[in-house]
């Protein structure tokens, strides 16, 4: 490790970094604007100037921009040097000349990098007495607010939006001191990663528009570390509450998972927590007054639970704790997963491969560092957007690494590297059903039906490992493509194969395994990732419970059955007729859920469940990483409880079970470990409820939290006792341990002098590295280092159209396909109108054009939607919207009829 001397004190720093990273890494406050740990340095803002000295005799030194200066062993620099300080102060004074007097009405105020840096440099008086430059704002859609006057021209927004996230519609316009950051004209930002602009922008040009609806300053939020529930990636988030409402979601850094950025579905999908559609009171149907209190509910439940056949239906979006508690209540033999047999089959295959296949499941960081990525069938842009962002980084970084072998430029020198890279890209093959924005970065794209993709994949595997069978009757073009892809994979060192349950094809899962395994056998690092539909699909699948269809078969034979449905809208995963039949057969239906769904509409007893923000829980992401999320706030209505709390209460109602069935989440996780060996290690993901630092709890509220004696004064002037959270090491107050919290327990980013999210550098071991004390989460599959003996040899038949029948395939959309996020007004606004997509040939054959109504008829469903004609589809295929509200659940990969 090189040693550098900062203000006459030697420090050991990481080789290959720049001086700014080194200074921040050792805890020295050095102001900056244009540098961002994920975006690298361009040396544009001149804010991070330091003096560099030639040797010990050199007293004058020279000013350099620390972000552009590489670490050299023994280099002497000064941050405190008078000249450097004066320079930095002057730079910020210039930056501030046109900055408006907006702080009181600016949403960034209080968490503003510009405010922090202004204070840090010591600039406290504006001498600029002339007129200020102004700009007209743009409408950028329902997610991001634009206030261009506040801009300090650091260019971070376009560098993030265009270079990092690959967006096109945000750019810089104008010239000299009139540059303008925005779109060519007013309009909705197209990238599903646009929300990160609010965190990337060091001032208030781009701010969170949903927060504006219920604006709260950072210091007034009650926050807790949470995990995003919108897809199977499980990004770490910080969720903030005020006055009983969830107010915003921010990225919580995790070096292995989400890094610095999350997608808009995660950032803006939180509003279902505040939705009017929430179930807030226990309801017993067919009473005169249906909304009841807890005592009445429990008395009623006691009758319904006892002396009946009790079955439980789990949920892929409920926490591991809740699913386990349900299993514990009803018994293993009476517990069902609640998803269809087809989906269960695929997910069980995936779990089997991850557990026993002997191939590492890469984290997002590892995907970023791969030099060849191949996606099989899964529409990652829409089902796991942050994974798509990681794939883009892999493509960009590989190209940069390639370039750096030829020039001696460090990776952080963003502008120079980009200049050298130009249009070069790393290897990425996207073999998918439809076109998607990721095609733009891909070296090879291939759009077809899952079976054809699988055949191509089997062919690739066969090229890599000739022992494997080559599918028969491959067209010459496909064979050549397979050859080329296999060639690219042969040249790579670190290959990642991504597939998933999205296309509804088990063959694809097997084909993905074959490729990954073949790559690994060649001595390369191989990664195999499967995208799953829901936040805890992996956790639910790992419990290996029988599917909903099994429950239906059973209930046909039984009567006098009570079913407990845990946070699951059965209509989302199973056909309407099946679910109707199931629910009609059950004698009583107890639904525990947070939002009203079709299923809860049919329940006889409705139990209000807490959402992720109101509960402690653990979910397991696509890579088998168990991540614990902590309760952000206590719901005002005590009837809203975590599902697992309700289930343990029900347990104590059961005949022959003792009272005192109260368990902390960490205790439940320990029980899970003992009943399911595949979950071994999961209890380490949650901090024990009695965890303390120097005997102190951790506060959820920052030390500047305001209004404690007035918030509830309209209800009663006597302040109530602070709420007690017995389940986690957090308090609902501002009192407690004020030092650096352990990495899994960071409720908000704040360090002295760093009020904005940029305070993150104080929480990291090194810039861009893991959090101090190690990143949170426990990877459950890493325990298995066995190598499987099996290969998959049965290749599917080539796709052939049928007359009068169409193959039904899913069309996902980043906004609209996720169950919960559609209850956020902003995302609902962005959700496209559902439509049925068919190929041009089919449209001609059916005589329909864009916008015509088309009816889909399966053996169980029948519904009509407007048609969209697409050029990227194969003839004989129809795409229906997946997961959309009011669209019934469909069996993907089946043959259906369509009618004009």
């Amino acid at each position: 490790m090189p040693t550098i001397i900062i203000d006459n004190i030697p420090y050991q720093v990481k080789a290959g970094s720049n001086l700014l990273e080194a200074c921040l890494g050792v805890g020295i406050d050095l102001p900056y604007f244009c540098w961002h740990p994920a975006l690298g340095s361009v040396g544009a803002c001149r804010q991070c100037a330091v003096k560099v000295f030639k040797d010990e005799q050199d007293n004058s030194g020279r000013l350099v921009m620390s972000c552009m200066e590489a670490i050299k062993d023994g280099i002497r620099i000064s941050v405190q040097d008078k000249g450097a300080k004066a320079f930095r102060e002057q730079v910020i004074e210039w930056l501030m000349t046109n900055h408006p007097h907006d702080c009181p009405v600016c949403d960034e105020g209080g968490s503003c990098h510009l405010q922090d840096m202004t204070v840090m440099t010591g600039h406290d008086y504006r001498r600029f007495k002339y007129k200020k430059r102004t700009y007209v704002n743009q409408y950028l859609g329902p997610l991001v607010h634009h206030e261009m006057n506040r801009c300090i021209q650091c260019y971070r927004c376009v560098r993030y939006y265009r270079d990092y996230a690959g967006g096109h519609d945000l750019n810089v316009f104008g010239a000299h001191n009139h540059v303008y950051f925005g779109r060519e004209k007013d309009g909705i930002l197209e990238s599903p990663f646009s929300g990160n602009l609010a965190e990337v922008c060091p001032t208030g040009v781009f701010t969170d528009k949903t927060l504006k609806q219920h604006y709260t300053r950072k210091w007034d939020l009650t926050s807790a570390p949470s995990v995003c529930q919108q897809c199977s990636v499980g990004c770490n988030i910080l969720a903030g509450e005020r006055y009983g409402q969830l107010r915003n979601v921010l990225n919580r850094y995790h070096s292995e998972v989400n890094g610095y950025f999350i997608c808009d579905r995660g950032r803006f999908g939180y509003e279902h927590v505040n939705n009017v559609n929430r179930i807030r009171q226990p309801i017993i149907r067919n009473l005169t007054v249906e909304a009841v209190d807890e005592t009445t509910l429990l008395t009623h439940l006691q009758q319904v639970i006892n002396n009946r056949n009790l079955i439980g239906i789990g949920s892929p979006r409920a926490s591991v704790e809740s699913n386990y508690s349900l299993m514990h209540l009803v018994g293993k033999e009476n517990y069902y997963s609640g998803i269809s047999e087809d989906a269960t089959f695929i997910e069980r295959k995936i779990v089997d491969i991850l557990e026993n296949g002997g191939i590492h499941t890469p984290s997002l960081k590892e995907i970023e560092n791969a030099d060849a990525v191949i996606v099989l069938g899964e529409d990652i842009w829409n089902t796991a957007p942050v994974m798509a962002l990681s794939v883009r980084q892999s493509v960009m970084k590989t190209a940069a690494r390639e370039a750096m072998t030829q020039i001696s430029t460090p990776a952080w020198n963003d502008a120079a590297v980009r200049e050298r890279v130009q249009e070069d890209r790393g290897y990425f093959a996207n073999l998918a059903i439809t076109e998607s924005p990721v095609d733009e970065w891909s070296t090879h794209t291939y759009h077809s039906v899952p079976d054809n993709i699988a055949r191509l994949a089997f062919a690739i595997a066969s090229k890599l490992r000739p022992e494997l069978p080559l599918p028969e009757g491959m067209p010459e073009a496909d064979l050549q493509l397979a050859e080329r892809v296999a060639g690219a994979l042969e040249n790579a060192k670190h290959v990642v194969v991504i597939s998933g349950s999205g296309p509804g094809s088990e063959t694809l899962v097997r084909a993905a395994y074959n490729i990954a395994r073949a790559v690994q056998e060649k001595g390369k690092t191989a990664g195999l990732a499967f995208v799953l539909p829901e936040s805890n699909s992996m956790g639910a699948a790992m419990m290996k419970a029988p599917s909903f269809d099994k429950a239906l078969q059973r209930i046909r034979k039984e009567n006098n059955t009570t079913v407990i449905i845990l946070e699951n809208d059965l209509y989302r995963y199973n056909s309407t007729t099946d679910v109707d039949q199931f629910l009609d057969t059950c004698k009583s239906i107890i639904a525990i859920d947070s939002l009203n769904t079709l299923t809860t509409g049919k329940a006889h007893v409705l139990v209000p469940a807490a959402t992720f923000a109101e509960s402690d829980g653990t979910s397991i992401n696509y890579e088998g990483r168990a991540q614990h999320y902590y309760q952000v706030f206590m719901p005002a209505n005590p009837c809203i409880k975590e599902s697992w709390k309700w289930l343990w209460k029900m347990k104590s109602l059961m005949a022959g079970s003792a009272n005192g069935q109260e368990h902390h989440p960490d205790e439940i996780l320990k029980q899970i470990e003992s009943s399911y060996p595949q979950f071994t290690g999961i209890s380490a993901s949650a901090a024990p409820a009695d965890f303390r630092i120097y005997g102190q709890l951790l506060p959820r509220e920052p030390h500047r939290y305001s209004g404690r004696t007035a918030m509830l004064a309209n209800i009663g002037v006597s302040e109530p006792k602070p709420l007690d959270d017995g389940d986690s090491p957090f308090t609902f107050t501002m009192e407690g341990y004020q030092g650096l919290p352990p990495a899994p327990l960071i409720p908000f980013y704040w360090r002295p002098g760093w009020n904005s999210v940029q305070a993150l550098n104080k929480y990291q071991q090194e810039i861009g590295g893991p959090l101090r004390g190690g990143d949170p989460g426990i990877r459950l599959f890493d325990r298995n280092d066995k190598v499987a003996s099996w290969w998959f040899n049965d290749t599917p038949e080539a796709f052939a159209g049928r007359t009068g029948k169409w193959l039904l395939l899913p069309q996902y959309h980043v906004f609209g396909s996720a169950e919960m996020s559609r209850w956020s007004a902003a995302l609902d606004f962005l959700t496209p109108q559902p439509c049925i997509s068919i190929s041009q040939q089919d449209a001609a054959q059916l005589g329909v054009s864009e916008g015509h109504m088309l009816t889909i008829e399966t053996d169980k469903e029948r519904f009509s939607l407007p048609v969209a004609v697409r050029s990227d589809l194969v003839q004989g295929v129809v795409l229906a919207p997946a997961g959309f509200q009011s669209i019934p659940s469909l069996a993907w990969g089946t043959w259906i009829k369509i009618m004009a």
Partner: protein
Amino acid sequence: MLSNLRTMWLVFVHLFKKKATVQYPEEKNTLRPRWRGRIVLTKDPDGGERCVGCYLCAAACPVDCIALQATEDKDGRRYPEFFRINFSRCIFCGYCEEACPTYAIQLIPDFEMAEYNRQNLVFEKEDLLIDSQGKYPGYNFYKVAGMDAGVKKKGEGENEEPPVDIYSLLP
């Protein structure tokens, strides 16, 4: 000993001095304009609410007795949806007034606000808002702020250039 006696004499003589006591309810003391008493929310010269809901008063309050929620009208002008001061906690330190960037919150020379019921000391925005500019006449925050909140268009504020024409590349 003598000095003690002298002290006693000097103190004794005070028996006949003029008394400082003001017989309060009958006689009233003169309160200066900057006297820190009851807190009010003022209006700008154009009759709009001055408070922009920036939460600085709440953050400055050492006893945390101010709670508010900011909201926006259709023009994007911020104002408090509710603004609550719990005067049973207030210590009249005046930090809120010092923190206020828009001269909205002001302490006025009125202290006669005793109540028999503590609940009556919780003042809501309707109780706080007065139809006056208070101590600082003539100030309208939105005229000097950069944003357009229905008070002035971009570039029409004090000390502002007209909006930049981003399609022009002229120097």
